[in-house]
């Protein structure tokens, strides 16, 4: 597929992510932060986010698996995940975290377990989407094209 076509695909795909709420304006900020001096910025940050989140999700799973759940700890993890997901613009993950936290406050085991599932699901979804998007970008760059700037009319 030729570069122009790939670029259009990328733009459409990225737009859809915003439309569907997977990503928010913060992600745009990240994209804007990428420049010649830091050409892989988005990829790096996204990778960091993935690593960090997987770890957090593991910790959360373990924490909720205890006979005596330490909700403070759970809350701390969720807070952290909320922070990093919001920094990267993973909106749905962030929202799931917000709900998660309120159930943590109530110390509701069942609800928090459900929330954990929800968060995980959102996380894997956005991870998938981001990876697809980044792959598309790579292909464009490999083909000699440049990444088009997304203009979103928010």
């Amino acid at each position, binding site marked *: 597929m030729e570069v122009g076509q790939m670029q259009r695909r990328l733009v459409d795909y990225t737009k859809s992510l915003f439309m569907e709420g997977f990503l928010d304006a*913060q992600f745009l*900020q*990240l994209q*804007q*932060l990428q420049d010649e*001096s*830091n050409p892989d*910025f988005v990829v*790096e*940050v996204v990778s*960091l*986010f993935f*690593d*960090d989140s997987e770890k957090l999700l593991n910790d959360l799973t373990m924490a909720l698996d205890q006979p005596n759940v330490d909700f403070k700890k759970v809350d*701390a993890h969720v*807070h*952290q995940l*909320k*922070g*990093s997901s*919001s*920094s*990267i*613009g993973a909106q749905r993950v962030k929202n799931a975290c917000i709900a998660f936290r309120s159930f943590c406050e109530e110390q509701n085991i069942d609800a928090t377990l459900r929330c954990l599932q929800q968060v995980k699901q959102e996380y894997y979804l956005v991870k998938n989407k981001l990876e697809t998007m980044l792959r598309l970008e790579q292909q464009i760059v490999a083909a000699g094209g440049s990444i088009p700037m997304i203009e979103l009319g928010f």
Partner: protein
Amino acid sequence: MATMHRVVQSSVRTSDATTTSYDGLTSCKAADIVISDQFPAGLRVLVVDDDITCLKILEQMLHRCSYHVTTCPQAKVALNLLRERKGCFDVILSDVYMPDMDGYKLLEHVGLEMDLPVIMMSADGSTRAVMKGIRHGACDYLIKPIREEELKNIWQHVVRKKWNENKELEHSGSLDDTDQHKQGHDDAEYASSVNDATDTSLKPLKKRSYSKEEDDGEIDNDDPSTSKKPRVVWSVELHQQFVSAVNQLGIDKAVPKRILELMNVPGLTRENVASHLQKFRLYLKRISGVAQQGGIANPLCGPVEANVKIGSLGSFNIQALAASGQIPPQTLAALHAELLGRPAGNLVVATDQPALLQATPQGPKCIQVDHGVAFVQHSVKSESSSSKHFSQYFAPVEDVASGFRSWPSNNIGTAGPSNSGGLSSQNGNMLIDLLQQQQQLQKPQQRSTVSELRRSINVQPSCHVVPSQSSASFRAGNSPVSVTQNGSYSRTAVIDYSLLSSQSNCPSLNIGQVSDVNLQTTGVLSGYIPPASVSPSVSSCSVNADNCASQQDQTSSMTFKASRRLPGFVHSTSNILDPYGSTKSGDLLNQEPFNNLGYINKGTCLPAEFAVDEFQSHLSSSSHGKVFSENIGTRVKQEPSMEFGDNAKVGIPMLQQFPPNDLMSVFTE
């Protein structure tokens, strides 16, 4: 870890321009902001956040704003970094929720120790959280996710603070006000001398509010009446006088006016005394508070509180503490270091003991800690911002020795960890190793002096210092780091502020131990590495020991090593006299003994003759030898990079100069 490492690396490497480099600390100016044409470009920002993703994003955003960025995923490391490189940052951005240390705590420390604006960040934007931040003295509170535009504006806090400080400087007259203010704040948890320029209306609430007067103004003793009221440098002698005055009056009755009268120092103003007193009180409080903190990793510390009597602090009697064996030497050292740490070479020397530290006002001051107690005194010159830093603590260095006591004699010459169990068990990280090394180098008699020194130095360690029998242990050569290079050496004890923290961390003390009556310098450096986890070393170690020259390089290498580095706590980069001045703050407190003594050579090497004599005169009890910090010109301070934490020990490259010393061995473990 890897990511952290990466982050650290990146922060170091990115910005050739922007990221702070750890080498030329000398270039760091004392808190002054240079308002250049490109201002606010080049603003030096320290970002502390445990979330690596956020850290990276912030770093990039700040780069975009043309700021110099240093990132740090761990609060403790950041604190050490700040202590070491006092003048190297203009503003701090800190996350609120962090695993190793609460952001508010960091905020307080910074406020107390360094007069820098701190901006909090959090995903939690609730009014309650924001209010808490303000109450703790934050200049601003940003809610995550943070936008670049918000970061662009952070320079305003820096400027505002500076201007307010200047205004206050000119103010010298409203004493009563400040006094009262201070009194009011006395009870505040963390009264910091930092001027909090941000919101005068909230002054009463802020921790830092009371400091207005330039307690830290450096007043050269020889030039008390400059129109601009230089900051007062609380040198050892000065502090000594202060302490004696306070003792005379009784800690409860000590009011600035009377103290001033008793001290009878020309050029010293009531405000200076008042602010110093304030800090002192805080320090005392902190000591006692620390003693009580459960957080003190060192089990020895536990009982400290019993011994730490604030009441008796008037006389700074760490001996009592020491006697109780509670205070880990490191703490003492740290305390001492703190005391000494004052950039202005404020050595806090035991009031009645002959302060072994001798700080000569001239350039680098070498504090000779006679008894093994090494005070890190950096001769921090005015330029180092550290001056401000230490002014806060002039802990009664009563019994620093006690702190050192525990240092095992092993330190002498032996590898670091060999430090006598006493110490090592306690703090492990102290520079004690170094000191010990030093000790070894020195003649045996020095050891004894060191021990004496220890005794004499009453250090109120903010961290747990386990005072062991002072003399005894000292002889054993516990003195934490006695650097005795060539016989003379001034060590500046850098007190790790971590000592101050209530955490168990042992502050890294750079205690230069200069012991010995005949000027042998036994530098006792206790590098303290706070027990905190060692985060990727902040290259703070790179303190430049300009004077010490050689060592510097090493330090820089130390930074960014694998996570375990604890940046030496370099007190004042510029003027660290002692060759080994380095305190590594590591969290080694509980770790292996002296593993992590890191000496950070801070900047200056002590000039050869450290006015020992002067010092002597100040010491009330000069029973303990003198601490001479000879210039350790030859010795370069290095900042040993210590790896704390689970295990790593980073050898400290410093002291290359020391020929036969086995300093390095100290750190080898």
